[in-house]
């Protein structure tokens, strides 16, 4: 095993981390601003993946997946808006259990709708021609698509950082994370802000779903699969923190990749071990928000 193998393994880990970050960032943002644990976040991801498969079927495999990123994001964002306005808005300030139940109900409904629309079979989505090949990394081919995922995740991270730290909307989001009542008191329309944050989170999940469609099989069950992983990220990084999502996703992606390389039989338990250690040392995660008073 040479240095080239380690570099490839590092990039492989970053690929998983990249996708996880895009999903977990949305989940975390929604929790931070709205204090809603949105179990339906994975459903947006799955809807994004299935929408992407249809877009590629219509637009063709040559470029199809690139417009699909946008279409999936918009579709998931629209679904998110409907859920926020139709369901969640009625549950703010109520106990968390009620929100969990409501969002879990949405998980089941969306899953059945997807089954009705797209059927039960696994679908395979062609990667755009420009990203279908591979790039030479220290003499070994590495998929361009994986590098695209890593790049996209970094771009999403950069945009989110700019949005939150350099715009008026971001200032409001930061304020909502600290104290939404006070924010409402100074004249900001918190209801609309919450809708906006939820739509943003959903859109990110939808786009991630489209990215995942190019990476592997699209099928039912991908909603819960990604949700569990995204929660693992936020448990390590801390719910409500974008830097936390970045670090959490990086830790899980790399721990998984190097775990598989060095201790294959223990790779899965390494992630749970990391979660246990973080929970023991910092119960709210590495960058987590403390309980709101």
């Amino acid at each position, binding site marked *: *095993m040479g240095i080239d*193998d380690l570099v*490839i*393994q590092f990039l*492989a*880990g970053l*690929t*998983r981390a990249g*996708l996880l970050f895009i999903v977990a960032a949305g989940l975390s943002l929604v929790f931070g601003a709205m204090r809603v644990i949105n179990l339906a976040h994975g459903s947006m991801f799955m809807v994004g993946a299935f929408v992407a498969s249809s877009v590629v079927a219509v637009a063709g495999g040559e470029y199809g997946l690139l417009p699909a990123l946008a279409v999936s994001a918009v579709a998931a964002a629209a679904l998110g808006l409907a859920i926020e306005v139709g369901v969640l808005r009625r549950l703010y300030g109520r106990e968390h259990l009620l929100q969990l139940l409501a969002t879990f109900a949405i998980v089941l409904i969306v899953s059945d709708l997807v*089954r009705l629309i797209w059927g*039960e*079979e*696994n*679908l*395979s989505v*062609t*990667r755009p021609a420009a990203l*279908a*090949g*591979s790039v030479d990394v220290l003499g*070994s*081919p*590495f*998929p*361009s*698509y*994986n590098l695209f995922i890593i790049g996209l995740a970094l771009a999403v991270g950069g945009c989110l950082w700019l949005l939150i730290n350099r715009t008026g909307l971001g200032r409001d989001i930061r304020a909502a994370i600290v104290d939404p009542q006070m924010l409402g008191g100074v004249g900001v329309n918190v209801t609309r802000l919450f809708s906006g944050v939820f739509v943003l989170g959903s859109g990110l999940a939808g786009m991630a779903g489209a990215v*995942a469609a190019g*990476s*592997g*099989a699209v*099928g*039912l*069950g*991908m909603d819960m*699969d*990604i949700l569990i992983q995204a929660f693992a990220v936020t448990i390590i990084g801390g719910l409500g923190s974008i830097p936390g999502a970045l670090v959490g996703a990086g830790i899980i992606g790399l721990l*998984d*990749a190097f775990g*598989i*390389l060095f201790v*294959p*039989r223990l790779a*899965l338990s390494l992630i749970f071990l990391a979660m246990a250690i973080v929970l023991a040392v910092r119960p709210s995660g590495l960058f987590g928000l403390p309980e709101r008073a």
Partner: protein
Amino acid sequence: MHLGLKGPITALLVVLIVAACQPAASSPTTPASGGPGPSASAATGSGEPIKTALITDSAGSTSLFGVANINGARMAVDELNAAGGVLSRPVELIVRDSKSKPDIGVQLTRDAILGDKVSVIFGPVSSAVAAAMTEVAKENKTPIFFHTSNTQRLTTELFHKYAFMVGPNTTMEGRGNAIAAAALPYKKWAVIAPDYEFGHLQSEAFVSKLRQLRPDVEIVTEQFPKLGEKEFTPVITSVLAGNPEAVYSANFAGDLITFTKQAAPLGFFDKVFFTSLYETDALQALGAEAPEGVRGYSRAPFFAIESPTIDGFVKSYLDRYGVYPSDWAIMAYDAVKLWAAGVEKAGSLDADALVSALEGYQFDSIRGTVTIRPVDHQAGVSVYSGTVKQDPEVGFATWTDIKIIPGADVWLSEDEVKAQQP
């Protein structure tokens, strides 16, 4: 008023109970009483359907297989009914989804047996679910036929007399693949298998048989990614880091599609010889992305089967569903037909009579005539392998250079089976 109604209600109940018991009590006696002919047996409620249940997994990464199971079983049932039913009674197929979860499989099996009063259960996709379901069938003395789930434990430590297996079990499949692998020049092998019952048992069977046939072979790494994994890249790169010459995989369905898509741009298929469960459904879903030159193995690929019935079967399946039948459709079809043949031979739905009828039975399956071995109720079916190649005739990749290993060459000996049975 309450008292006044009690009498009539009791009377009504008695009438209902008697009426309900009547057909069950009288139908066996009518033929035994000498039998005035077919008109009499038709009069004794031959319209009462025989209920059967297919409990399979039609969601998640194995959904491809579950859907095919349902199609195959439905076709078999419709053919039986078109030909006058079983024991001159129509057959009704109840279909349930266990969602690849053993606890749901157990619940559905119990509901089907106790609630729907089915005469037979046809099994699931997942071996983990099958292992749980077989216990319920055993408790209730209900015949259960496995076609897709194939853990060898169903025929050994979990075996009971009401269980039958029409697909090759994990030992047969693993050993069959090992025989094929041993003939190749490669010495450094890696193994990738899904992290559950099927993956572990099958790869164990492969590795031990390969080591026995080829003591010079070295297993450089074994990877067990979880079933339903979406990101195989780290697994693939770490396998390649071990520099194997050949890789044996027990990945299948959605996982194999994901694996293949992620492996190709890593140069995986150029660097190693690869063999995995490239069956009809996966090849169809992969379309142009199916990697030519890899070695596929499977249990009932329509394009590899040579039997008197295969062509007719493929044609009627294609006419009915518009797609080619996958292995999982063929084996579920065979399971239903085997059960029906057993019931006809036994002349009744009695589970013990069915078991005696099927032990040693020569079954004309879609895969040719196979014997049901009495010791473990394993059908002597073959293990198929071939090289993946695009096939313009069917519109997706199938196999060339096909190799068929008879089940009797690879199954556990009767002594090995007995040593492991309870």
